[in-house]
């Protein structure tokens, strides 16, 4: 009996070693240890770079957050309908950070890259539990000062507050207008925010597989 147990244990060890090797191969260049052992994806191109700083601004009473990855590949039809376009490959999954006060969820933080005129713009979006915009911040951009200043202006950023996925985010109509040279980048940010809201609402209104959890306090 024990010999059989030994053989079974050996076989299990070999299987675990193989699985470990595969996971190791897949994440050899990944430096985001939070989810590497669990999720089948690489590190997100747009990580949340300053969670502590952002949490203090977006959710001053937060006590922690939890990272989740939602797989949306089964919801492509709903997504296409809401987005008004075919979802991109990046939109097959949504990385979100659920924010908690003690054990109660008080909101969500999402990140996304938008294609600015002169380079990628990374935005951080905070929503309430009812998925309306609470605040936003640009965590990285390489636009010239004339455009960067407009996009980082508090008045312009605050015009997103209260928006939901159903709101149209046309810059100059639904969102505070910007000078012509900043229009493309501003609209890219606006489209990015709306896409995030749609991904979030679709993922929460329709049960979808949740891949990875990681607590941060």
């Amino acid at each position, binding site marked *: 009996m*024990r*010999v059989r*147990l*030994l053989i079974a244990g*050996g076989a299990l*060890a*070999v299987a675990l*070693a193989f699985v*470990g*090797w595969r996971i*190791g*191969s897949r994440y*050899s260049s990944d430096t985001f240890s939070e989810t590497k052992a669990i999720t089948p994806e690489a590190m997100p*191109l747009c990580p949340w*770079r*300053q969670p502590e700083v952002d949490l203090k601004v977006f959710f001053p009473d937060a006590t922690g957050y939890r990272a989740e990855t939602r797989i949306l590949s089964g919801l492509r039809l709903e997504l296409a309908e809401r987005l008004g376009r075919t979802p991109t490959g990046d939109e097959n999954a949504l990385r979100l950070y659920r924010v908690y006060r003690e054990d109660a969820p008080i909101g969500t933080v999402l990140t996304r*890259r938008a*294609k*600015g*005129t*002169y*380079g*990628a713009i*990374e935005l951080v979006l905070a929503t309430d539990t009812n998925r309306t915009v609470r605040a936003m911040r640009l*965590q*990285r951009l*390489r*636009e*010239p*000062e004339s455009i*960067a200043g407009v996009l980082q202006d508090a008045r312009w950023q605050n015009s997103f507050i209260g928006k939901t996925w159903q709101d149209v985010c046309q810059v100059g109509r639904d969102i505070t207008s910007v000078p012509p040279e900043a229009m493309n980048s501003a609209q890219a940010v606006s489209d990015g925010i709306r896409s995030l809201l749609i991904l979030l609402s679709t993922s929460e209104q329709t049960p979808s597989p949740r891949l990875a959890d990681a607590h941060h306090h």
Partner: protein
Amino acid sequence: MLLLALRNSLRRPLRNGLTIGGLAIAVAVLVCLSSFGNGYRRALNAEIDRMGVQLLLVPLGCPYDAAARVLKGKALDVSLPESALVQARQDPAVAVAAPLFLAAFARTESGRADMWAGLDETALELKPWWQTKAGTNWFTGTDSAILGVDAAEVEMRSPGDSLYSPETGFHFRVAGVLQRSGTSDDSLFFVPLKTAQQMFKMPGRLTAVAVRLRDPSLLRAAVERLQRIPGAQVVTMTEMMGTFLNLVGAVRTLLLSIALVAIAISVLSVFNTLLAAVLERTSELSTMRAIGASRFQILGLITTEAFVLTLIGSVCGILLAIVAGRVIESFVRGLVPLAPSESLLAPSAGILLVAAGIGTLTGVLGGLYPAWRASRLHPATVLKPE
């Protein structure tokens, strides 16, 4: 006897498990270190061969540090005068002398740096992998840029898009995006040499000159001549490789000695485990002797137990090395000079067999004394009152 030895090995699972674990770790370290030496040499050879460069002209200072930084696409604090390029090109042994200007801007908000590389058209002759996946494969003007595939992906740029350098105020039009090369080029922004020099306010200065000779046998004479260029020093790829391998070899020797100490400790652990087992089983072993087992059979039984323990430990060690090797590699990669982009671990069948052999053999040696002691037990011992 093997079955009996296996069953006996399972009688003290915790003690035997710890012994196996200790040996497994020692064998794993041995496998990783041996594989690392092979892999590093192979990957370094491949990377340097692919460059097609025999030597580099770098600014005065530590030549190996300078050459390593240039080869890995990192900026230098010092620079070469452009006259070094002119003189290098005049040397009769030089087939191609390609200037390189590298500079970086730290982007603290994203935890990375923008790496800008200034090139002229001779670079194409030294970069056989310079193929674009989109757009043109050379600059279309002084304000055009070609992006490495990772740089383009991070900045979401395609040919025709604009690109801005916030620190210098320079605007660019993306002319092309390179195919993935597996080298540091993948994360660079390439711009014309003159533009890069203007961006960083260093006109007439270079980071390095990469040189390919007409005939590699002319290396010695060429080095002697190029060494005379003011402000420059020559580093040959052979020297670079030798220096790196020596550095790595010294560290590897030290670590191998640690692995051997770990194996020696494992031998003592096997010794201790089996001796304890023999003492616990004095009565049982004496009974076996009393019912006809020979001294040789008892010796064989305990030695087989040692063999089984160490064989399991060695196999577990090899599996551990395969799994943990990637983690160790990612750690080592940050420490070694000029870490090639290819895998640094190259575990061959020979390395695995030797490691398993060393683990098993030394373990069996550790079991010899307990086995001898067990074989010396007298059958009458079992009849003694407790």
